[in-house]
């Protein structure tokens, strides 16, 4: 194996995980393996949706609302239709005639494909044009004349329920206000009782602002409807091609077997490519009407203003403790801004996602949360940007509260956590909100991060700097995620169970193809899943092709989001390989003329116990399975299997993060000097890919903590509609991330893996904020909201902290 060169020789940045299994150098199955995706991607030979060029293909562009809330008085498309290169102009009214003006969202709401009665957010889809080329389609948008009767916009979620506010969703029968849902968990009375006897209670108002996943590739689709065989092929930027296919069957009324969804290479998703966007449906409608392929590719402004947002939770959190620093209870009230349509993609029975894990990693006596969700005149979305179904918000709340408590009581942040973490012997641990954490070794994980950080030395350095008047801060967070949704007994999306299928075929010469229901957007499925199967079946991973992202060629499953690929589909891959191996063992017993019980499996072959020379390899067995020789009585030929995996429980990755910042007292600028992330994602499959997933989450966290926000003015105009306004970290703002790990396998996952795709996005934001708060605490500051821009930090230093809009 080729080792990764270290960019630094600083000893504190060297990996030192001698206490834990280090599979960096272990040959595959589980170990560092270069990615099978990369040879095409580094040559510029990836195939992204906008790369798809079909003969006769036309281009679609969407006219979007310039205002946040208005009645549509009239739409005149005559000038656009007269454009010489325009082939089709469609409005909401025309879609309504075909019953296609509205589509279901993943949360049992409906969303307008094209507006008919009103526009409800700036950037909403109003009409589309199909033309010969992408520039002409854009030109023709300028020729459509829409008359709007503007209405007051509901921008501030805090005021959405005021009786004076206009009703945004008057399309819904009987709707008289902007209330979406109330949801609660835990025991309010028991929690109140504990708070009443607590020695210390700390309360914080914490805003998790609206942000955007902003993958580098925007959303796009190419729809190709073949009128002869009645089949629709749709290339689209989808994280969940099978779920999309089923929904298209429901929305468009096409038979499901006549729809093929292909998600080719995807340029990042982060949850933003889970929903079905109106643009996809428009492209389908256009191809149905015209009988030729139609491409839609949104630009960055469309992506940022109309695509799926994330977060937008306004939280009041309270934490109660004894005077010795034992955390007793946590409670919170949340106001959730869902925008104009409830488009979040949470399991049906979880309207606030998995926010219920807000009790964090601590053994406490009582907990209660209430979430009130409202409609506003903003873009829909809600579960995106690697949030693990609202766990990001939950972890931020509890980890901010714990550090606030630590500062209030004068106890070190890490020490307070060590006193309260769930102990290894308490697993499986049922929380006060009913979640059963599968496994963890929390104290060891936190101590590992402290060791890598050199925590004691950092504390000493901070004191020295404070004495000199410098603002250095250390932030600690410890997160527990719930990923791998989910057990079908209580999790579904629009009635579709959250299971995943996997099919494995061994070819006669012993090479293999594995077909997945999940879909990479950069996570490296083609590599990781080959490794999982290789470990189980003994065929080298380079001899295993991974097929995914094509509904005609893969088994059904709900797709890749919520860190569910490895916990769900990874389990399916391991189990399907074991199923094939079981059959191989029967064939081997026939070939070696011994009983099954007399066979042992090692390194891709079965041999007779006590006689390693009497052996057949999996390749020998594959040829026998497909060949003319005898097979055991009653056995069919071939060597393949398919399963659908229904997880027994979620998996619970966890980790300890430490952030070190320096704050410029004069400018308010925050410099992240170091960041140490120790993750426990259970059994590690490819350490290189895991490290990459963690790094990516950390830069997400840094972005949200320091610069990213989608704000609106009082009229509902989006103020973050381009990369000039919506700031994303570059290489200059990021430190060289320091990572470590512990390994506590999941007891119920076939290989003990837990998932890691969102861990750092979930766990890191509170570490950044806790570090800045720690730096500013000598000035009397205990809370600061994200994004911690220089101006917001400077205001806080001046004694005028202000929350984001």
């Amino acid at each position, binding site marked *: *194996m080729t080792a*990764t*060169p270290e*960019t*630094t020789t600083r000893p504190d940045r060297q990996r030192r995980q001698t206490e834990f299994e280090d599979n960096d150098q272990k*040959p*595959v199955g589980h*170990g560092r*393996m*270069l*990615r099978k*995706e*990369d*040879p095409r*991607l*580094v*040559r*510029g*030979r*990836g*195939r992204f949706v*906008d*790369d798809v*060029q079909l003969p006769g293909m036309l281009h679609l562009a969407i006219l979007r609302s310039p205002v946040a809330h208005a009645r549509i008085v009239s739409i005149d498309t005559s000038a656009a239709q007269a454009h010489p290169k325009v082939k089709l102009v469609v409005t909401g009214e025309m879609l309504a005639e075909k019953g296609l003006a509205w589509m279901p969202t993943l949360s049992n709401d409906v969303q307008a494909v094209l507006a008919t009665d009103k526009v409800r957010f700036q950037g909403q889809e109003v009409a589309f044009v199909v033309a010969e080329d*992408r*520039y002409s389609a854009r030109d023709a948008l300028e020729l459509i004349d829409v008359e709007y009767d503007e209405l007051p916009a509901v921008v501030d979620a805090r005021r959405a329920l005021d009786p004076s506010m206009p009703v945004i969703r008057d399309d819904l029968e009987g709707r008289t206000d902007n209330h979406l849902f109330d949801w609660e968990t835990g025991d309010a009375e028991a929690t109140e009782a504990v708070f009443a006897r607590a020695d210390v209670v700390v309360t914080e108002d914490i805003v998790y602002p609206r942000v955007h996943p902003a*993958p*580098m*590739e925007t959303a796009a689709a190419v729809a190709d409807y073949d009128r002869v065989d009645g089949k629709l092929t749709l290339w689209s930027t989808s994280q969940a091609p099978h779920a999309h296919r089923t929904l298209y069957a429901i929305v468009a009324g096409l038979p499901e077997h006549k729809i093929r969804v292909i998600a080719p*290479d995807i*340029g*990042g998703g982060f949850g933003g490519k889970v929903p079905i966007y109106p643009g996809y449906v428009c492209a389908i409608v256009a191809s149905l009407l015209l009988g030729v392929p139609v491409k839609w590719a949104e*630009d*960055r*402004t469309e992506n940022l203003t109309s695509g799926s947002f994330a977060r937008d939770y306004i939280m009041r959190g309270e934490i109660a403790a004894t005077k010795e620093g034992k955390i007793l209870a946590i409670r919170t009230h949340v106001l959730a801004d869902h925008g104009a349509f409830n488009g979040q993609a949470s399991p049906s029975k979880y309207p606030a996602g998995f926010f219920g894990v807000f009790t964090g990693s601590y053994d406490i006596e009582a907990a209660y949360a209430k979430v009130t969700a409202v409609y506003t005149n903003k873009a829909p979305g809600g579960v995106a940007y690697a949030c693990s179904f609202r766990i990001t918000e939950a972890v931020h709340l509890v980890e901010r509260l714990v550090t606030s408590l630590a500062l209030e009581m004068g106890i070190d942040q890490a020490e307070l956590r060590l006193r309260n973490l769930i102990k290894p012997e308490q697993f499986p641990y049922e929380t006060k909100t009913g979640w059963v954490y599968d496994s963890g070794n929390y104290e060891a994980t936190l101590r590992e991060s402290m060791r890598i950080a050199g925590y004691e030395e950092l504390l000493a350095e901070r004191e020295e700097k404070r004495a000199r008047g410098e603002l250095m801060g250390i932030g600690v967070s410890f997160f527990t995620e719930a990923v791998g949704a989910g057990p079908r007994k209580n999790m579904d999306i629009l009635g579709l169970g959250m299971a995943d299928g996997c099919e494995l075929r061994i070819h006669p010469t012993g090479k293999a193809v594995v077909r997945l229901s999940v879909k990479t957007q*950069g996570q490296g499925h083609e590599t990781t899943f080959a*490794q999982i199967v290789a*470990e189980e079946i*003994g*065929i*080298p*991973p*380079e001899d295993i092709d991974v097929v995914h992202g094509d509904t005609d060629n893969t088994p059904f499953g709900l797709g890749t989001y919520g860190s569910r690929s490895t916990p769900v589909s990874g389990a399916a891959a391991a189990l399907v390989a074991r199923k094939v191996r079981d059959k191989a063992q029967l064939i081997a017993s026939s070939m070696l003329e011994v009983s099954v019980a007399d066979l042992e499996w090692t*390194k*891709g072959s079965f041999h007779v116990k006590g006689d390693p020379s009497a052996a057949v390899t999996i390749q020998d067995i594959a040829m026998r399975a497909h060949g003319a020789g005898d097979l055991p009585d009653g056995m069919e030929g071939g060597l393949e299997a398919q399963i659908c995996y229904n997880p027994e429980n979620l998996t619970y990755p966890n980790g300890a993060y430490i952030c070190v910042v320096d704050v410029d007292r004069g400018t308010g600028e925050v410099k992240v000097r170091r960041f140490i992330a120790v993750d426990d994602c259970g059994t590690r499959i490819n350490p*290189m890919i895991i*490290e*990459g997933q963690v*790094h*990516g989450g*950390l*830069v997400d966290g840094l972005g949200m903590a320091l610069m990213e926000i989608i704000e609106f003015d009082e009229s509902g105009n989006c103020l973050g509609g*381009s*990369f000039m306004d919506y700031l*994303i970290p*570059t*290489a*200059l703002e990021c430190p*060289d*991330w320091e990572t470590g790990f512990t390994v506590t396998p999941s007891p119920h996952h076939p290989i003990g893996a837990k998932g890691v795709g969102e861990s750092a996005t979930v766990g890191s934001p509170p570490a950044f904020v806790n570090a800045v708060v720690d730096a500013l605490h000598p000035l009397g500051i205990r809370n600061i909201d994200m994004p911690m821009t220089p101006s917001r930090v400077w205001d806080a230093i001046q004694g005028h902290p202000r929350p984001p809009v």
Partner: protein
Amino acid sequence: MQVTMTVNGTEVTEDIEPRTLLVHFLRDTLGLTGTHWGCDTSNCGVCVVWVDEQPVKSCTMLAAMAGGKAVRTVEDLERDGVLDSVQQGFMECHGLQCGYCTPGMMMTGRWLLDHNPDPTEQEIREAISGQICRCTGYSTIVRSIRWAATQGQGSPVTHTTETAGTPS
């Protein structure tokens, strides 16, 4: 209008609309889809190509402005079946995940190494600071370019296909 330029060593002449952006000319007219389109505001850099040996953001340059010039794209990094050391470095050091920003990052990385064969980490970070990667957090991109630097200036390396050992 008619435009003539050299793209990856080959002269091309095409009839285009004067407003055609270089990125769309490369992708849609020539079919060189390795160069990507990401933001329209020169912020993200997924569209970086070389024009007369200088990295430029091809979403904010008209194809007409490249008339008479030499354009180099990611498709030209591999020569005679041998990957550029920057390409190899990105594979060795996990410098890419989704691969969308990667062509632009590699074009900048190659340009940097041609002008500064032994850059420091900070010099690499500054060189790619006009480009955004949403997946990697940049550390592995920095490592990838450093890896290429250790292979010597501009000298292609043998493309190894080694991926893994035998199953355990």
